[in-house]
């Protein structure tokens, strides 16, 4: 195993460990809320744990985990806004949902790829998602999300090898407009890059932003030009794995980065 692959595996192992931790927090919070259903701090913690699992899973391109956890998070968002009461019935559904997330994660972790196993789990997840959807206003979220995530996958992914002696990479990132809505925070890619190398320069691209009045603030228009020092080969593979919702990620040997503001 190259040190490069090792680096990615480390990041992945950390993700699984943290996700398990978050799931335990979710279970603990749900049980605590059965005694004190209006404890806003615990409700907020519950929401954040689900949000974090979804965001991190998105970073690693785990679409099945993202889709399901998105449902859980959406219901929890309504709970924390006081639109839905967390009663015993919902608490039960959420506890079962955390089991579903746990199994979905385990399937990724253990690289279970047999179609029967995946399909069976997806059916379980879909059934659970349907129960969750009854707490949401819109019931079509589940199926639509599937389509929108795959539609935003790399339409123009151009990643070419090439690294100079100093190990400086120039990385251009552009995101699909649905990125935020699919629970993907572009900033998580930057966090990831920071974890594997040194960002020596970063330029946030804002020229795709529409006029303020016309801006849909839930649509993503951000882009980044980054110079990353990472003296290892195969950076390409890492980006490939982590850019499920990136519409354009180019990675090339660099010269000077223009730093003029648009």
């Amino acid at each position: 195993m190259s040190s490069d692959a090792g680096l990615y595996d480390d990041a992945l192992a950390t993700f699984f460990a943290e996700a398990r931790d978050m799931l335990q927090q979710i279970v603990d919070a749900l049980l605590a809320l059965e005694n004190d259903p209006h404890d806003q701090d615990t409700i907020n913690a519950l929401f954040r744990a689900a949000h974090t699992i979804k965001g991190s899973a998105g970073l690693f391109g785990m679409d099945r985990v993202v889709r399901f956890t998105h449902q859980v998070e959406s219901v929890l968002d309504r709970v924390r806004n006081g639109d839905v009461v967390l009663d015993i019935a919902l608490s039960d559904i959420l506890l079962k949902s955390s089991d579903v997330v746990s199994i979905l994660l385990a399937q990724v972790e253990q690289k279970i790829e047999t179609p029967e196993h995946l399909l069976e789990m997806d059916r379980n997840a879909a059934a659970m998602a349907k129960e969750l959807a009854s707490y949401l206003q819109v019931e079509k979220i589940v199926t639509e999300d599937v389509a929108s995530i795959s539609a935003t996958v790399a339409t123009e992914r151009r990643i070419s090898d090439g690294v100079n002696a100093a190990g400086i990479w120039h990385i251009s990132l552009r995101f699909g407009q649905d990125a935020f809505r699919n629970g993907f925070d572009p900033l998580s890619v930057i966090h990831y890059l920071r974890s594997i190398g040194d960002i020596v320069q970063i330029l946030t691209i804002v020229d795709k932003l529409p006029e303020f009045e016309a801006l849909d603030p839930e649509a993503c228009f951000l882009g980044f030009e980054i110079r990353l020092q990472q003296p290892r080969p195969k950076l390409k593979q890492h980006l490939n794995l982590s850019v499920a919702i990136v519409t354009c990620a180019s990675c090339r040997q660099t010269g000077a980065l223009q730093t003029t503001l648009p």
Partner: protein
Amino acid sequence: MARTKKKSSDQLSELAPVAVFAAQPGSLALEGELTIYQVAEIKSMLCDALAAAKAAFIPLRLNLAALTECDGAGLQLLLALAKAGKAAKVQVELQNMPGNIAAMIDSYGVAAYFSTATGGDEK
């Protein structure tokens, strides 16, 4: 920092999940989270505030003292506001930015888009 906060008479901040209230024209406070879950609501308030500031030829000051979290969508909204301010010739000033938010803005190389201040005792 010793500061006083004013709430609008309708106590919006206690009803809304995101507390945004006008201390006076040309001045807004953002509290709590600025994430994908709040950006739609906050954007419409910022839109009104920007229009009002433009009409009155006054700067728009955002008090961020009680802002706890900001994600990519939040950062994008702040950047869009900065651009809009520049286009409308309204000075947009971010005041009392908490350390974690300032560090984030800094780490994305976008600090130059904003004018910031630490004082900003409205009144």
